[in-house]
């Protein structure tokens, strides 16, 4: 199968997941009614479809896309498949700020988390950028910052009341419960603003396969380019984390799954976005229905769905190689 038709398959999978997410619930809506209600309005299901489930599904899509792209960029720049926003400290920065906001109640959670994530990124960039760019140094500086911030979160959690600590813990896992268009539009706005840089990033990723010297000959500045790519990824991940919490595993797994489905050398941005979106939509759906009426946070289910699938892809790789 050609790369484009595989990409098409992933897009179809996302569309199916989206319709399923709107259709399945306490009251199930036939898929055809879902499409009708979304396109034309005025059906009996408008309240359930348009008011309740669609906003949450849209949020799942943009969240997954932002984490997928963010992860793909950070993994490409660091050349490390384990690197993702939650390894290099972005998630922990957002998490620490959010934990403080939740346990003290003095500031709103989302802006605090966004500021925390970006501040953490700034720290990592400052430490990682001494005397030129090295992927290894960048990712190690990120890990060090992540651990220090994670320790900070633990200090706050262990010194807080159980009820506050548990609320913070739930935020830290990440959930779409009770969220919708407000959060979705904040992430979508970031994605739109990042569109220009993203088009550039797609091009820059293709050329970064080149030797640094060859790239320089073509008028590309390799170091500046790597920082640019990492910065775009960081902003997307921080924006998504700030709105829905730390839905951890998506940024790590989506690019790796995309790479294996499309059989490409490095993760493509569009494919990572589609895989990430599909994963979060399915995770949220499973979280809503599995123990209904108890809602499991999407952040728990992303790993529960993504981890076995990644292992399956890793195992299947052998057959194709033979």
């Amino acid at each position, binding site marked *: 199968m050609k790369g484009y038709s595989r990409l098409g398959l992933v897009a179809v999978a996302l569309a199916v997941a989206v319709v399923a997410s709107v259709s399945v619930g306490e009251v199930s809506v036939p898929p055809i009614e879902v499409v009708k209600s979304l396109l034309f309005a005025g059906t009996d299901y408008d309240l359930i479809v348009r008011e309740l489930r669609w906003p949450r599904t849209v949020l799942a899509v943009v969240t997954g896309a932002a984490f997928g792209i963010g992860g793909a960029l950070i993994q490409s720049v660091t050349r*490390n*498949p*384990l*690197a993702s926003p939650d*390894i290099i400290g972005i998630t922990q920065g957002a998490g620490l700020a959010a934990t403080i906001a939740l346990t003290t109640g003095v500031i709103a959670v989302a802006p605090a988390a966004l500021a925390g994530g970006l501040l953490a990124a700034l720290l990592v960039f400052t*430490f990682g950028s*001494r005397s030129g760019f090295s992927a*290894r*140094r960048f*990712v*190690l*500086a990120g*890990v*060090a*910052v992540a*651990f*220090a911030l*994670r*320790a*900070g979160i*633990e*200090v706050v*959690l*262990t010194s807080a009341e*159980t009820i506050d*600590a*548990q609320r913070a*813990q*739930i935020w830290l*896992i990440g959930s779409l419960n009770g969220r919708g268009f407000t959060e979705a539009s904040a992430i979508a706005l970031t994605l739109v603003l990042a569109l220009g840089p993203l088009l550039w990033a797609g091009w820059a990723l293709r050329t970064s396969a080149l030797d640094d010297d060859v790239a320089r000959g073509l008028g590309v500045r390799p170091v500046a380019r790597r920082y640019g790519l990492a910065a775009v990824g960081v902003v997307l991940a921080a924006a998504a984390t700030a709105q829905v919490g730390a839905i*951890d*595993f998506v940024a*790590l*797994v989506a690019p*790796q799954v995309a790479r294996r489905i499309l059989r490409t050398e490095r993760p493509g941005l569009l494919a990572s976005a589609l895989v990430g979106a599909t994963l979060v939509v399915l995770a949220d759906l499973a979280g809503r229905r599995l*123990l209904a009426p*108890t809602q*499991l*946070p999407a*952040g*728990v*289910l*992303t*790993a*529960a769905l*993504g*981890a*076995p699938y*990644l*292992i399956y892809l*890793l*195992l299947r*790789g*052998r057959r*194709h*190689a033979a």
Partner: protein
Amino acid sequence: MKRSAVVILGVLLLGAAVAASLAVGSRDIPLNDVVSALLRPSDGEHTVIVRELRLPRTLVGLQVGVALAVAGVIMQTLTRNPIAEPRILGIAAGASFGVVVAIAVFGLSTLAGWIWFGLGGAALAGVAVFSIAARTREGSAPVNLALTGAAIDAGLGALIYGVLSIDAATFDQFRFWVVGSLAGRTPQMALQVLPFLALGLVFAAMAARGLDALALGDDMARGLGHSVARWRAIAAAAAILLTGAAVAVAGPIAFVGLAVPHAARALVGTNHRWTLPVSALLGAILVLGADVLGRVLFPPGEVPAGVITALAGAPVLLWVVLRK
């Protein structure tokens, strides 16, 4: 600095850390009283504090520091990834899951009861990660090992938090264990994990030569006549035993397994016959030092060692990384 000088300095520092760990606390005990409490036990208060409260803690700290640091070296070499650590290979998550099962399913509420569950969980997760990775293409290629470990870690993490988010009572006990601490450890606990630790260290020592070869890459290692699969299995067994024992007894104390190997390599180079013992020394110093610091920082409260290792270790790792 010469390698032998590093070792001598390390031993001296470790001695100081052990002494501080026995002498410093909410009540400071003069060093000669510590020595006499150890050698000539009496019924005095100092003897009780030193022998029953502080000595077990010091012993567990030594074990945990050595185990996590040595396991960290092995994992970074096996996955050929500088950010590998006990968490990345899913072993710490396995231990955590074992403890959650102990609390939530079996209703155990004491550390002593959790240890076996922690060990069992760590062993199961570790064996699962390594055997899945061995069945992937290129059999346990470093990147497959790292990704399998990350997947198992995340999957178990999801299970754990699924349980915790609907069970507040378990959450309340678990959140103090998961930070990692040496407080309240007994001599029995140190004894319980000792056989696993000792066996792990024996395997690690056996694997030292093989790890040097694996670090060169699988093809090169094969070319030099090494059995890649055999060295991997021995090293993996060492990593699982050491991490399992350490995490079971003290919780997943963060950062030691990640940062110490980098510091050791910066000091004595990449030959595992030096990196492993120097890491063991540094790991023990870091954990004991963190534990002492945690006791004196905000008296009468205690900051768990796991928090201090990350807070104090992060600048050290940054320094090691930026130095070059």
